[in-house]
C-alpha cells in the first residue's frame, strides 16, 4: 500500500490539487472548458520538459533549453524575412538547433565535460547568436498565416497547441520506453561506465538525446512565435527553471528517481494547474511563484523523507 502511494503519490497530489481548486471555484476552474484550456497553457513548457527528460534519462543536464526557445522564435522570423516558405523554415530551424544540441552532447559525452557547464556555455553562445540575428529587437510582422495556425484554434476536438504536446509526448515516450535507444540512454544514466563496458556506445546516444532536446526547445520557440505573432530574443527565458521543476516533480512519480515522460507530464500539469487555479482565484502572480516553489520543495522533501523512514 505504501509502495503504491509512493508510486502514484505525485499523481494523487495532482488529482487532489484539481479537486481542491474545483471546490474552491466550481463555476470557473472546474469547467471542462477550463481544464482543456490548461492543457493548452501547459503545452509550451511541457514540451521543453519532455525534451529535458531525454537528457536527464542519460543522467545529464541541458541548461541551454531557454536559449534554444528564444533562438527558435527569432531564427524562424529571420528566415521568413528572407522569404523562406514556412514548411522549409520550420525544418531549417529544427535542423540547425539539432546540430547545436549535437555539438554540446558530443562535448559532454566524448570529453566528459560536466554537462552543467558545457550546456551553460552552449546556451550563452546560442543566446548571443539569437541577439545578433535580431539586433536585440523584438521581431514581428511577415509571418505566413499558415504558420500562425500551427499554434492557434482547434483541431479535431482539442486546441491545436494541445495536439503538439500529445504528439511530442508520444514520440519521446516511444524513444525512451519502447525502443533500444531508450534502454541504452537509461543504462548510460544509471551507470555510464557499466553501460560502456557492456557495449553501449555512449557518444552517439548522448549526442542524439541532446540534439532532440535542443530541437524540442526550438520547436517551442516557433510555436510561441506562431501563437503571439512576434519573437523576442529573451522570449524563452522563463523556460529553464520551470521546465526542470516539471521534470523533477515527475521524477518523484511512477519510477524511483528516474526521469520519465509520464512523470514529467504530471509534473508539468501540477505547475500548470496551480498557476491556472490561482489566477482564477485572483491570487497575485508574485504569490503564485512563492506557492509553486513551495509545492516543488514539499514534493521533493516528502519523497526524500519517505525514503529515509
Amino acid at each position, binding site marked *: 500500500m505504501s509502495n503504491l502511494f509512493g508510486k502514484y503519490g505525485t499523481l494523487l497530489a495532482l488529482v487532489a490539487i484539481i479537486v481542491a481548486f474545483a471546490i474552491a471555484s466550481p463555476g470557473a476552474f472546474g469547467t471542462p472548458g477550463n481544464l482543456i484550456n490548461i492543457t493548452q497553457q501547459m503545452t509550451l513548457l511541457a514540451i521543453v520538459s519532455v525534451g529535458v527528460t531525454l537528457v536527464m534519462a542519460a543522467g545529464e543536464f541541458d541548461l541551454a533549453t531557454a536559449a534554444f526557445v528564444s533562438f527558435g522564435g527569432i531564427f524562424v522570423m529571420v528566415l521568413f524575412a528572407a522569404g523562406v516558405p514556412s514548411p522549409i523554415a520550420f525544418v531549417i530551424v529544427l535542423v540547425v538547433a539539432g546540430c547545436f544540441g549535437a555539438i554540446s552532447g558530443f562535448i559532454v559525452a566524448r570529453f566528459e565535460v560536466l554537462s552543467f557547464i558545457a550546456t551553460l556555455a552552449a546556451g550563452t553562445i546560442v543566446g548571443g547568436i539569437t541577439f545578433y540575428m535580431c539586433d536585440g529587437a523584438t521581431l514581428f510582422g511577415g509571418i505566413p498565416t499558415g504558420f500562425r495556425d500551427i499554434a492557434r484554434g482547434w483541431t479535431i476536438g482539442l486546441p491545436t497547441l494541445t495536439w503538439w504536446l500529445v504528439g511530442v509526448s508520444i514520440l519521446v515516450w516511444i524513444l525512451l520506453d519502447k525502443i*533500444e535507444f531508450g534502454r541504452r540512454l537509461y*543504462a548510460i*544514466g544509471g551507470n555510464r*561506465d*557499466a553501460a*560502456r*563496458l557492456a557495449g553501449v556506445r555512449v557518444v552517439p546516444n548522448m549526442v542524439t538525446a541532446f540534439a532532440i532536446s535542443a530541437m524540442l526547445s526550438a520547436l517551442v520557440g516557433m510555436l510561441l512565435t506562431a501563437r503571439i505573432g512576434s519573437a523576442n530574443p529573451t522570449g524563452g527565458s522563463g523556460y529553464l527553471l520551470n521546465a526542470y521543476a516539471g521534470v523533477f516533480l515527475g521524477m518523484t512519480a511512477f519510477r524511483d528517481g528516474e526521469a520519465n515522460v509520464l512523470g514529467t507530464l504530471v509534473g508539468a500539469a501540477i505547475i500548470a494547474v496551480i498557476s491556472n487555479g490561482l489566477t482564477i482565484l485572483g491570487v497575485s502572480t508574485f504569490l503564485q511563484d512563492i506557492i509553486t516553489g513551495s509545492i516543488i520543495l514539499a514534493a521533493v522533501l516528502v519523497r526524500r523523507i519517505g525514503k529515509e523512514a
Partner: protein
Amino acid sequence: MLLEVRDLKKRFSGVRALDGVDLQVEAGTVHALVGENGAGKSTLIKALSGLVTPNSGTISVDGVTRPISSVREAEALGFRFIHQELSLVPFFNAIENGFVGRPYPLKGPFIDQAAMRAQVVRAAELIAPDLPLDVPTSRLTTGQKQLVEITRALMTQGARLVVMDEPSASLSDAEAARLHKAIRALADQGVAVIFISHRLDEVLSICDQYTVLRNGQTTGTGQIAGTTRDDLIRLMTGHESAALARTAPQVVGKPVLQVEAVPFGPEGETISLEIGEGEILGLYGLVGAGRSSFMKQIWGARRHAGGRIRLDGKDMRAGQILARIAAGGAYVPEDRRGEGLITQRSIAENLAIANLRSMRKVPGLPLVDDRRVTENAEAVRSQLAVKMSNATAKPLTLSGGNQQKLLFGRWFGRPIRLMILDEPTRGVDVGAKAEIHELARKMAATGAAVLMTTSDMDELLALSSRVLVMAGGRITAELTGEEIAPERIVAAAFAHTERKETTGS
C-alpha cells in the same frame, strides 16, 4: 613494549577476518607486517585506528590495555596512519596540507603563516629536509607525496607509532630508497613503524622485526636478521591444500586471443600473451600491479593504447568494445557496482543491455520486445540458478554471488569466444564461488578462451590451466600443470628486480 596485540578476533557477517592475531612492536624499530591479500592486515590496521571494533582480544600500549573505539582515541595514543590512497588536498602545498582538519596557529583572528611554516619545517627536517614545501602537492611525485603524509603524521606532538600501508607500492626505486631513509630516520627518533609491504626484498633490507598473517592468524614473528625470503613465503602460504575443486581444463586448441606488446604497469613495460580454445589463463600479481587496467585494455575500454590485440585472428582496435562483442567477447568487471550493474534498472534490463538487438519485436526495427527481455532473464535464471524473486526487481536486492551471475548472464545467448574475468568471485560466498567456477569451466569446455585475473590463490589454483605471474611490470613466471603451486606463484610474485640503493639525491 610499545604496542602489544593479543589474540585479536573480528568477524564480519560470519567471515573471520581476524582469527587470533598477535603482534608486538617495540619503540624505535621498524616492524614488517606481511601476508597475502585477505590475510587480515587491513582489518588489523583498522582495529588499531579505531575504525573497527574487535569481537575479542586486547590491544595494550606500554603494558596498559587500551580499547580503541574511535579514530580520536587512536590519535591520542600517538598512532598515526599513512594509507595507500593518499589523502592530500591537491592544490594545497605541503604546509597547507599539514593543517587540514587540525587547529591553525592564530595571531589574533588571523592565521599565523609563519608559525604554520615553522611547525611543518620542524617535522619535515626529521625525515626529509629537502622536501619542497611551497609547491601544490599535485605537482609532487608520488614519493614526495608520501613524505608529505609522513611529515603530516609527525607534526602533531606525541607521534609514537606510524603505520604505513604499502607506501612503496607505486614508487620508483630511487624514491623508494628515499622513503627507506625517512623510515630509518623515524625509527632513530624513537618512533615505532609498522611497515606493510608486498616487496619482500624491501622488508628484508629495512625492517627489524616481522609478523606474518595468514587467514586472519599470526603464523610467525621474529627478527629479520637470520630470516630468509623463503621463510617468509612459507609462513605466508602455509601448506594447506586448496579447499576448492581443482579441475582446470587442459585441452588447448588453436589460439583465440593474441596479445602483443600491450602496455602494462606504471613504467611503460609491455606484455604479450596468447590464449587458446578451451584454456583458462590465470594472471596473478599483487594488487596495484595494474592488472585491471590491463584487462580493460584487452576489452577495448581504453581509447589510446599500444600494442596489438587479435581475437580469432581479427585485429581489435583500441576503444572498440562493440567489435569485441561482435567477435564473441565477454567481460566481467572487477567492480560489480561501479562498472558492472546498472543499479536503478531491473534485473531483466541488466541482462538485456548487451544484447538488445536480439530482443526486437520485429527484425529490422529497434522496438524492444519486453516479453523477450523477460524470457531472456528467465532463461539466465534457470541456466545459472540465480536466486531472485522476479526479473523486474533491482539487482542490488540480490546477494553478491547472484549479482555476479547476472554479469555472466549478460553475455549469454550468443557464442562466446573470449571471456575476460576480473576478480570473478570477489565478495562472493563459497557456494556461489564453486558455481561460478563451474561456469567458467563450462565456458572453456565450449571452446572459449578465458582470461582471468584474481588475487585469490585458491581460485587461481582451482581454475587455471596456465598461470602467468606478474611483478614489477613484467611476467616473472609462466607455470602449467604440476608447476602451478602456491609457493612458486608467490615466489615469482615477489621476485622484484634488485633495487639499486641510490645515495644522496
